[in-house]
């Protein structure tokens, strides 16, 4: 154990020390920034009415990024002692000097104003002030309610975090932010002989998340939806396999969020386009020559990046390079019009950064990441969207996903498919799979439902980079219709 007398800086003195380090670095570097990040988290998991995990955690540390001789270096540590912080500053410089041995040109950053600012997620109910007993009891009741008929396994989870971070740079920016996140969901597994079927609510893979307080969980109405979800899982177990063929489909909002994520969010990341992720995540079909010259989808398709949306999981005040949150158009009326950028990558296009450089925590560098990537709503009522389909499917809630390294050839499967016949929803099918090629798919979009069906879905598990970083992003969507899509089934 270490005690404070050994030099651990108290949190209230941290800002002064960080400034001292920047002063120390100023003469040695072209540019430097420091991020101190502290995250408190509470995670609850319940299975079949029994608590399986209750954990609380605190994680904090400091990351220092420097540009020396036109090349990057970054070092980070959990050690908050003053001498340890100066040591990682020196280490970052040493690493940057090694990087400079293998460079093609000096790295330059798009200009950015100095910001002295603070930001706090607006919340109504602090999730850390709600008793753990109340939260656990909600999941116990909900998961017990789902244990009906063939539902032999039910799961519920809640996850809350409060991240406090400081960003300081040699350009004079000093930004303090506090981001609250709340999320959770439930799932029912109907298990039969050689088969099981899962239904999740409100979304798959852990539920739905937002930068919000506990009010977000209350609005989910987990308990009220438990029996319906269990019922659907039971129905799926005995449902026929999804028919195969080319047909018209409507994607529900949750599945559409993942479609936007994989086929638009990732390929517009400018670092991918510039080849920086080639060995791991891959590149992008949206090459530089396509900017403003490529038809991405039908004229109905407008996709934005918007980190200012209230409640979005990709909402913040400033990104991790100190650039203010902003809204930009990635696809405008079907035309490809913009990338997600960092300061470094934006400079190459002669543009300012649109504030999409985000780091998982103190121990990772900012990379180009999604914020809230949104398909803007259309003008159709949902019954009209479905009503104009003679024979087709309504697909929702992702089960499996895969897309190639240029983000063109995708295949998704969904938890549930509903027959659409003569404009009416019909029976349930299981194991639905649909696939396509990104621009062809989006060009086949001929209807998007109205704003009242629009919701920002929180995706807390977007992976990228080496070492891997998991990012929390949002996707605003409302159900949309796509014509002549290849649909099939997993066996």
């Amino acid at each position, binding site marked *: *154990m*270490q*005690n*404070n007398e050994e030099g*651990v800086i108290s949190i209230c003195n941290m800002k002064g020390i960080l400034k001292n380090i920047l002063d120390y670095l100023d003469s040695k570097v072209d540019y430097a920034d420091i991020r101190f990040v502290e995250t408190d988290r509470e*995670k609850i998991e319940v299975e079949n009415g029994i*608590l399986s*995990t*209750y*954990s*609380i*955690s*605190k*994680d*904090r*540390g400091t990351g220092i990024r420097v540009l020396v001789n036109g090349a*990057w*270096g*970054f070092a*980070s*540590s*959990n*050690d*908050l002692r003053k001498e340890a912080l100066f040591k*990682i500053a020196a*280490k*970052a410089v040493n*690493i940057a000097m*090694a*990087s400079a*041995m*293998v460079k*093609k040109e000096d790295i330059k950053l798009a200009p950015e104003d100095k910001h002295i600012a603070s930001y706090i997620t607006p919340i109504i109910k602090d999730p850390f002030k709600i008793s753990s007993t109340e939260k*656990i009891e909600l999941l*116990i009741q909900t998961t017990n309610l789902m244990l009906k008929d063939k539902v032999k*396994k039910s799961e519920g989870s809640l996850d809350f975090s409060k991240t406090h971070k400081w960003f300081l740079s040699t350009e004079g920016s000093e930004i303090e932010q506090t981001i609250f996140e709340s999320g959770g969901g439930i799932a029912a*597994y109907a298990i039969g002989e050689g088969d*099981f079927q899962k239904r999740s609510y409100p979304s798959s893979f852990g539920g739905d998340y937002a930068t919000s307080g506990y009010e977000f969980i209350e609005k989910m109405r987990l308990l009220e939806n438990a029996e319906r979800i269990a019922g659907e899982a039971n129905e799926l177990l005995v449902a026929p396999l999804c028919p195969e063929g080319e047909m018209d489909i409507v994607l529900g909002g949750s599945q559409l969020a993942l479609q936007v994520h994989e086929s638009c969010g990732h390929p517009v990341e400018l670092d991918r386009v510039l*080849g*920086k*992720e*080639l*060995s*791991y995540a*891959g590149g992008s079909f949206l090459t530089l020559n396509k900017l403003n010259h490529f038809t991405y989808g039908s004229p109905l398709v407008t996709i934005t990046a918007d980190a200012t949306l209230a409640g979005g999981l990709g909402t913040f005040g400033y990104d991790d390079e100190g650039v203010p949150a902003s809204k930009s158009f990635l696809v405008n009326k079907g035309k490809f019009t913009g990338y997600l950028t960092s300061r470094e990558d934006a400079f190459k296009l002669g543009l300012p950064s649109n504030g999409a450089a985000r780091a998982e925590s103190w*121990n*990772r*560098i900012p990379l180009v990441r999604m914020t809230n990537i949104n398909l803007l709503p259309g003008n159709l009522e949902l019954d009209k969207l479905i009503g104009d389909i003679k024979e087709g499917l309504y697909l929702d809630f992702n089960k499996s996903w*895969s*897309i*190639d*390294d240029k983000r063109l*050839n995708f*295949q998704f*499967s969904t938890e549930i498919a509903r027959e659409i016949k003569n404009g009416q929803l019909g029976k349930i099918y299981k194991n639905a*799979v649909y*696939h396509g090629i990104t621009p062809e798919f989006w060009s086949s979009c001929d209807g998007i439902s109205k704003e009242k069906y629009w919701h920002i879905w929180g995706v807390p598990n977007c992976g990228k980079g080496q*070492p891997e970083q998991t990012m929390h992003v949002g996707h605003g969507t409302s159900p949309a219709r796509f014509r002549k899509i290849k649909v099939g089934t*997993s*066996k």
Partner: protein
Amino acid sequence: MKDIFFWKNFIEKVKKNFKGLDFEMVAMENNNELTRFAQSYIHQNVAETNLNLTFKVINKDKISIVKLNSLDESELLKSIKRAIQLSKIMPELDYHYCLVKPQVYKVKGKYSEKTENFTPLERAQKIIQLIERVNQKGYEASGALETGMETIIVANSEGVFAFDRETKVDFNSVITKDNSTAYHSFINSDVNHLDIERISDELLYTALRNVDQVEIEPGIYTVILSPEAVAEILSEAGYAGFDGKLIMEGKSFVSGKQGEKLFPKSITIADDPFEKLTMPIPFDFVGYPRKRIDLIKDGVIINGVYDHLTALKYNMECTGNTLPPESASMGALSFNIVMKQGKDQLEDMILNTKKGVYINRFHYVNVLDPMNLELTGMTRDGTFLIENGKITKAIKNMRFNSSVVDLLKGVDMISRERHTKPGFVGPVVAPYLRTNNFTFSSKTNF
């Protein structure tokens, strides 16, 4: 990094703060550095020093977990106090939680002083070596070189004290020129074994043949999978098939099939920390010793791997595959997947293939149907058509939808040569495989 004596002393000091309650502790201390390069220059270069401490308090089958990344005394005591308070109000488990008793560990993590002390300058020199060699042929190099050390300590109030330190070097690279690409990965504990000259030659060998790619029609093909591709398939199988929790819940293809001979006799797959080619972890995250667990033996499905919680709940034996406390709800994963070698040479596998496809690497593999272990994914960075015993053409990338069960049933040749490749937890030791049952479902134009 702190040594074994620090941690023994640490446990003695913190013990009294649990006020007689049972507890478990997992500590993971790491120093990792990683240099990334793209288009033949270094674009990211990072270092991390961190320590994660997790305490689990067990209060009459009521459990709470606290996690922090600091050894600061006041933070530590506050966290333990909070965990004790929380444990009192937690609901009870539906089974009795027992702590692991002190154990004997028969294997040790692999450590290399050179790897621990490998500098950013030395990583840059390795990358320069690769870039210079591939640039001579007009190729650009991208990839990452990571070196690092991790110490794991698992202890509990019953007297378990397990300490292990290991080093890791993890390297991967893609080289590109127009549409011509190749990929190679390398994982080991000792950076002395990182032979950039050999890796560059292998990359160029693949890339120089991966040109003028043609399209082939989707369908069922005989394929030869590289160890890289086999490792990916086996990792997915470990995750979605051989997790004992999924098996007990009836959510795995293994459920109810233990003892059935589903595969050719040549198929033996185990979780084996004693395999010379792997990088073992000596114990799991509650302190059980790691041991060899056969998953498939001589074509017969044996069983999966079991974590401590699942074993207690279902009255099974824990196989030494418990994950860290925050991942406990996942069940168990195989730490060191090993596939038994065969008798064949890669050259003979190709020579004996009338029509087939050689696959160097998969991309974005995901489980489509867990009950049949059906996977989907893409090929990438070197897929080739085999005609009349020879590699004749490079192929554009294809999507596959194929069941691991069907794939393994169709295996008729396995190489003697095996390689160590990155896996989900520890590395995977995999040979080349030929199978006559692999389904390509769609194609791309690149």
